[in-house]
């Protein structure tokens, strides 16, 4: 099982590096083992957006952290697709061009994983095959209604 964990580590690492490059349009990232013994050592993420030489993950920006985390989650999915994935406003810190790369990758990953996601973002709504509108016509009571993209824009302003 140690061999299996090493193989898993190498595979996820390779996916992570690849997905990071796609989401950031360059740069480099990888997972590192903190110790010798894979069966009980910790794992650390190192990531450098294109042209940057930051030494720690903590210094990255809000959007850079969200994108790096996405690359890692999808790297795990590629190895072992979850039946479905829930994302609650994960795209909110992303600017327009990063949101576009993010939604493109979700579309690609959705061949093997079903995505259920909350978003206020128009690009994320556009990639959906189905939009579920949640409303509170009666105060404090939630109801759902199938909506189209056009209806959403009316709904958000109706409050």
């Amino acid at each position, binding site marked *: 099982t140690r061999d299996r964990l090493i193989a898993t580590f190498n595979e996820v690492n390779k996916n992570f590096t690849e997905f990071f490059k796609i989401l950031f349009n360059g740069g480099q990232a990888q997972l590192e083992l903190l110790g010798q013994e894979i069966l009980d050592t910790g794992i650390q993420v190192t990531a450098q957006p294109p042209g940057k030489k930051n030494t720690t993950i903590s210094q990255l920006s809000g959007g850079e952290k969200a994108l790096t985390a996405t690359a890692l989650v999808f790297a795990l999915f590629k190895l072992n697709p979850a039946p479905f994935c829930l994302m609650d406003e994960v795209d909110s810190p992303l600017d327009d061009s990063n949101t576009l790369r993010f939604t493109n990758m979700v579309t690609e990953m959705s061949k093997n994983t079903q995505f259920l996601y909350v978003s206020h973002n128009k690009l994320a*709504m556009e990639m959906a095959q189905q*939009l579920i509108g949640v409303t*509170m016509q009666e105060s404090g009571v939630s109801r759902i209604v199938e909506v189209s993209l056009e209806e959403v824009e009316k709904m958000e302003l109706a409050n």
Partner: protein
Amino acid sequence: MRLIQLKLAGFKSFVDPTTIQLQGQRVGIVGPNGCGKSNIMEAVKWVLGESSAKEMRSENMDSVIFNGSENRKPISRASVELIFDNSLGKAPTEWSQYAEISVKRVIEREKGSTYYINNLAVRRKDVADLFLGTGLGGRGYAIIGQNTISQIIEAKPEELRNYLEEAA
């Protein structure tokens, strides 16, 4: 195992029984602030066996039961049910022959939760086993809550190792 239906009754702001049909691989949940979108996300996390009230933004588990609104009284029971299409027979062995698999959790005020798979009462562990290695259990990586995305890369080294083991 594709998720095809999600049913909520009495769960947080979903006081009335609500059925959400999922038709597609990318389903967007939209609406104004406070209307119940994150409550739906939490309902899924909850029915899969979440045991920490804090993860439900609550002080105790009973707080997920609808606690009243301007025109409605509080109620004493909440349930969430997930229905999966298992036509490919990929569910774990004891459930593999069912065409559909339903996972349900019911909570009653001051009486705790009960879990059901295909309407058979089971232990929480049995529900967790159904999703072992998928990233959906416990602190899995397949459920990303509001404002929590960066926690995944800033997690402690042992937690990152746990994700790897989960996927292995």
